[in-house]
């Protein structure tokens, strides 16, 4: 049996040896002389059709001329399989999960080396990973947690700004889902497994996954990536505030933040399933009021919420009315530039009012609302003038047509009368 195996090995080596020149003839010869063109690992594996699962020839390491031995060890210049894949040649085969961060860090934590490929690339990934929940668990011997290849893959690694990358913004939720959507696995840690489903229906998820807006928050924007940890209450507000700047500024200066010191954005907005906020969240006259989670109808907090709701609703209903009238002006073919401009101002006022609610100061919201009412009323007034002008033109057109018809009839009658007179003479 052993001799048969030996024979098979030698036959395989001979086949590869004979086929290799033909294979190399078809290769690109444009590589610089300094680069080694020989990668016997790849040549044999391609010929034997035992390529790694998910292998991509465009892999970033492949493109950077880092051969297989960079991770697997061995000698990529030797066609003898026994020698090239021997411990003496440094062959390590498939690295253990425990060793992967260290293995990647051999290059990725090396500033001088990495600078030769990408001058601005970070080199603290392994340090961050070691401080992350994933890294700490792996160090404890947990074999289920994510390490480098769990997110980046083994043989189809692309820079994060490449849409083919598993770490490209749009692909990140699905990458995290591979583990965090696995109920059986997450149960072991007492974690939920519906974060992806919740995120996909959220305002951020829809913007990212449906509208492909890569500027929107995805998993790593809140949790970090290499140093991924669950954010605490204080950091949640700071995380949200990194995009929702004024909301955080107003909130931090508000009585709510000062007096209670417990609130963070997620208490009102949730986390993975954040929905577009509605004015109804403030309507303490309905069941939709989020404020009633802590406040009760009749207390000062509920009264503040309702006052802000009422002011926003006033401007919003005027804005809606003005939009209808703007549309009527547009379909009448009238000039609507001024109306449109005023409506843009109202829209800005509404955005600012909805941001100012984070001050929990009714006077601030009311003052901004006054500006919104003014511009919305101006837009409505102008739109009504345009619609009136349109009606006047229609009536005028009808009257002028009538006048011309009457004139034509009169001229006809006059001519006939003149003809009759001429006949009588």
């Amino acid at each position: 049996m052993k001799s048969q195996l030996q024979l098979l090995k030698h036959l395989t080596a001979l086949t590869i040896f004979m086929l290799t020149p033909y294979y190399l003839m078809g290769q690109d010869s444009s590589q610089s002389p300094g680069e080694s063109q020989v990668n016997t690992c790849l040549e044999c594996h391609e010929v034997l059709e035992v390529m790694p699962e998910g292998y991509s020839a465009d892999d970033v390491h492949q493109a950077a001329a880092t051969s297989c031995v960079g991770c697997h060890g061995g000698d990529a210049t030797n066609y003898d399989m026994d020698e090239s894949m021997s411990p003496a040649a440094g062959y390590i085969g498939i690295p253990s999960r425990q060793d992967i961060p260290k293995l990647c860090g051999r290059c990725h934590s090396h500033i001088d080396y990495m600078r030769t490929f990408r001058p601005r690339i970070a080199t603290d990934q392994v340090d961050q990973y070691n401080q992350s929940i994933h890294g700490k668990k792996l160090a404890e011997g947990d074999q289920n947690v994510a390490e480098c290849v769990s997110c980046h893959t083994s043989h189809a690694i692309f820079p994060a700004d490449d849409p083919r990358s598993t770490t490209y913004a749009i692909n990140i939720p699905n990458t995290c889902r591979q583990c965090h959507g696995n109920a059986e696995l997450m149960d072991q840690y007492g974690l939920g497994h519906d974060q992806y489903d919740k995120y996909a229906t959220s305002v951020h998820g829809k913007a990212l996954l449906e509208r492909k807006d890569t500027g929107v928050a995805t998993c790593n924007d809140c949790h970090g990536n290499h140093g991924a940890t669950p954010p605490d209450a204080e950091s949640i507000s700071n995380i949200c505030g990194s995009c929702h700047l004024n909301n955080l500024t107003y909130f931090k200066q508000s009585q709510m933040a000062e007096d209670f010191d417990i609130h963070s954005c997620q208490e009102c907005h949730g986390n993975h399933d954040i929905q577009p906020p509605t004015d109804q969240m403030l309507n303490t006259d309905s069941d939709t009021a989020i404020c009633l989670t802590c406040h009760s109808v009749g207390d000062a907090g509920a009264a503040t919420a309702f006052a802000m709701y009422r002011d926003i609703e006033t401007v919003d209903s005027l804005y809606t009315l003005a939009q209808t009238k703007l549309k009527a002006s547009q379909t009448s073919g009238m000039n609507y530039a001024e109306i449109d401009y005023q409506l843009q101002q109202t829209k800005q006022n509404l955005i600012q009012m909805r941001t100012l609610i984070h001050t929990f100061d009714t006077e601030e919201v009311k003052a901004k609302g006054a500006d919104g009412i003014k511009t919305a009323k101006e837009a409505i007034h102008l739109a009504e003038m345009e619609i009136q002008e349109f009606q006047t033109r229609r009536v005028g057109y009808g009257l002028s047509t009538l006048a011309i018809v009457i004139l034509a009839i009169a001229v006809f009658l006059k001519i006939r009368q003149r003809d009759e007179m001429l006949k009588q003479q």
Partner: protein
Amino acid sequence: MTKIGRRDFVNYLLGFGGISAIAAIFYPIGRYLVPPPIREAEPTTLKVGSIDEFPANSSKIVRFGRKPVILIRDSGENIHALTATCTHLDCIVQFSEDRQQIICACHNGVYDLTGKNVSGPPPKPLTEFAVKVIDKEIVISQMKA
């Protein structure tokens, strides 16, 4: 009561028709000559005020047709005019004097003073307008493509 004859009726009809027809011709001409109560759309150039009244390191929002335009005089005395509507979700942008950048407070979008989106969610730059100073008067106009 005087009875109106057929001839008189035709004359009245002719007079009424003639006057109405003249009115129908001259009324639109008169309306055309009187300026409309609402400003006409889309100017191609706009005077936005004297440079003496626009100090360095300041900004103001002016109206160009139906668009708000942010006019910025930076610390280096250059004047920039850009559409003031953020390309992310249409909020009005602001000039940050400290940072010498244009920021959108809605989602922390950042543009440089040429309007290029440099940080945050804005997907494209702000549109730039040509700025000229003629006899100390700042004039902005749409850039030709």
